[in-house]
């Protein structure tokens, strides 16, 4: 009989609360997070809170990020937590250590929360099976970016009041977008009427099976007509193994111009997760217009991340 050395790595410690994706969340949990986000937004910025005093949070970013990482850091600091940010370049992964070993090492230092961004879909799900530390997914590959969908929902709700029956157009490279996936799950759970739009190489019929209320079109005008919300996605050439559209003509067919905004409802708003590529997926005129909620999204990002950090620490 061969000797078995592989350890039993399952179920170490109590199951912590994680935020890995919107798909796993129930509507009441999302409503709670949005309500707490609204609460934190109303709290005066100068006030330093003590909600997470004595807690330590590790921000572990294996992909470049400015806004998400900064937003998590500010959120943690406003709640009184201690934060450490690590970018992948300085880690022992560069020395050939496996992801599980790196995370186990960090977890052995007993942080309360690990916030992780990783280029591989499912990396936090895979790790959470082996870790007893609470984990927040700050974006995994093409899969989900749950805090982005929450902050988008908060932004929409501030202007529109409700998501039910709201016409939302999501435009761009849907197949390669974790932002789109998280938003589709959230908006679908809340009864929005969603149209996803992009070239057929990035928008497949399988998308309509992610949840109720999702339709497809490859025509920009059809997507934006009578929309309440236009959600643009960043063109992420770095995520495409192969060219899924000729990038030179992308703006011509799927870029958002003022003319398109004119086809939407008069009070329609435009969202973009950033960073924006002016002239690639969105024209400067639209990005800088009154309709654009881009900076409001960034502001709401801090409030939502405060709500999420608080939530995973709850008993």
């Amino acid at each position, binding site marked *: *009989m*061969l000797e*078995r050395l*592989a350890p039993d790595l399952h179920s170490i410690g109590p199951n912590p609360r994680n935020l890995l994706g919107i*798909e796993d969340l129930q509507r009441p949990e999302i409503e709670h997070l949005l309500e707490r986000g609204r609460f934190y937004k109303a709290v005066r910025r100068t006030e330093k809170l003590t909600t997470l005093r004595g807690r330590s949070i590790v921000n572990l970013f294996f992909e470049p990020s400015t806004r998400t990482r900064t937003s998590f850091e500010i959120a943690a600091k406003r709640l009184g937590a201690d934060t450490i940010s690590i970018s992948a370049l300085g880690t022992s992964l560069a020395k050939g250590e*496996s*992801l*599980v070993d790196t995370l186990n090492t960090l977890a052995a230092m007993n942080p309360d929360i690990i916030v992780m961004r*990783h280029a*591989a*879909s*499912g*990396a936090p*799900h*895979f790790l959470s099976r082996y870790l007893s530390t609470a984990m927040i997914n700050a974006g*995994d*590959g*093409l*899969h*989900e970016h749950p805090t982005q969908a929450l902050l988008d929902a908060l932004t929409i709700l501030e202007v529109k009041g409700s998501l039910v029956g709201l016409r939302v157009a999501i435009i761009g490279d849907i*197949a390669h977008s*974790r932002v789109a*996936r998280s938003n589709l799950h959230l908006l679908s759970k809340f009864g929005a009427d969603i149209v996803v739009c992009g070239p057929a190489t990035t928008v*497949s019929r*399988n*998308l309509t*099976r*992610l949840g109720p209320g999702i339709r497809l079109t490859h025509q920009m005008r059809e997507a934006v007509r009578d929309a309440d919300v236009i959600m643009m996605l960043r063109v992420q050439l770095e995520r495409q*193994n*192969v060219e899924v559209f000729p990038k030179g003509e992308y703006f011509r067919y799927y870029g958002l111009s003022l003319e398109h905004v004119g086809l939407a409802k008069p009070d329609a708003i435009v969202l973009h997760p950033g960073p924006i590529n002016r002239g690639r997926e969105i024209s400067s005129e639209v990005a800088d217009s009154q309709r654009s909620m881009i900076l409001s999204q960034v502001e709401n990002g801090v409030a939502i991340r405060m709500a999420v950090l608080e939530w995973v620490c709850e008993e």
Partner: protein
Amino acid sequence: MRLLIRNGRAIDPATGLDAKRDVLIDGASIVAIEPRIECPDARVLEAEGQIVAPGFVDIHVHLREPGIEHAETIESGSRAAAAGGFTSVCCMPNTFPVNDSAQVTSFIVERARRTAAVHIHPIGAISKGSKGERLADIGAMHAEGAVAISDDGIPVMNSGLMRRAMKYAASFGITVIDHCEDLNLSCGGDIHEGIQSMRLGLGGLPSCAEDVMVARDIILAADTGARIHIAHISTASSIAMVRHAKSLGIPVTSEVTPHHFALTDERIPGYDSNFKMKPPLRTQRDIDASIEGLADGTIDCIATDHAPHTGHTKMQEFERCPFGVTGLETALGLALENLYHTGTMDLPRLVQLFTNAASDCLGLDHGRLRPGREADVTLFSTEREWTFSVNNTLSKSRNSPFDGTEFRGGPTATIVSGEVVWTAEEGLVKR
């Protein structure tokens, strides 16, 4: 040394035998199969309530030796085979170095002679280094014991080379086995392209990547008249094409793995790489087509594609994990569960899929239970209840999607050349 297997239900699909028989083995040969045999000096193996079948043949395994011995060796893989009821296995050439020469082939044959618990037949590469450029030394490998050729996981994309390989192999009477995957269509994929790949944000391996190559291979078989064997067929369309090709008399055969008729992509638990293999787990429609194909003969046999990988290579981000799962020890249990206990097929047909039909795909001399034949015999029960655990596997690797699965029915004893090498009660008997 004589061995008497008594009171079992003997099934030999090649002759249509299905009756209660005693089987007497003398040395390495079967000497008699009769309703009642008295032989006082023979060791007795009581087989009441069990099936006595020809030794099972698996024409598609990876034994990882030479070069990847930390995942499997010829010795460990052959023991896992014995525990699965297999008495003969054919090992794919994707080792380090690739089995593309007479030297590597003869190394495998020699290692098998010294360490293996069951018969090992090497499969040689189609092209040098499986690079898809120049033909490997097919004749020389065959002379050393290679029974077929394949570039398995690194399939030949160049149809001109494939056509020449099929013609050339035919002149030695050996079959070309193709892992049908158009690498330009499957590039970057991790699981079946469908709702699951969309949900999980994983790259898709579309069915068409397999179908395009199955179509090509059928066309080349019709053109050359040379035999082609489609490995691990997994899509309803490919099965339909093979059925049509067979109706036209084109020399094509095919196999399916147990995991492909037992699991769909919807059964993949969150990013568990023990469910990651090529071809990927597909849909219920594809499973239904596989089972129909097995029942009507479109699919000739069951093969495991046993693909051991070490724990550390499978314990990574899903997209970085290698493709493949182990399968030797769970094959019969899965076949009984999905094909026999469901009432889809009778035992003689099920036995055939593991024995003479598998053997015939490559023209091997195995899979018969008859006096005068090599005494390779598999005993199994349709009712024995047992649970598969990777903690007890005889493979060196643990990458099975069936850890913890409870089975009704499985092998009870494995006899290779007249020697009992494994029993359910005692485990590995032969050292």
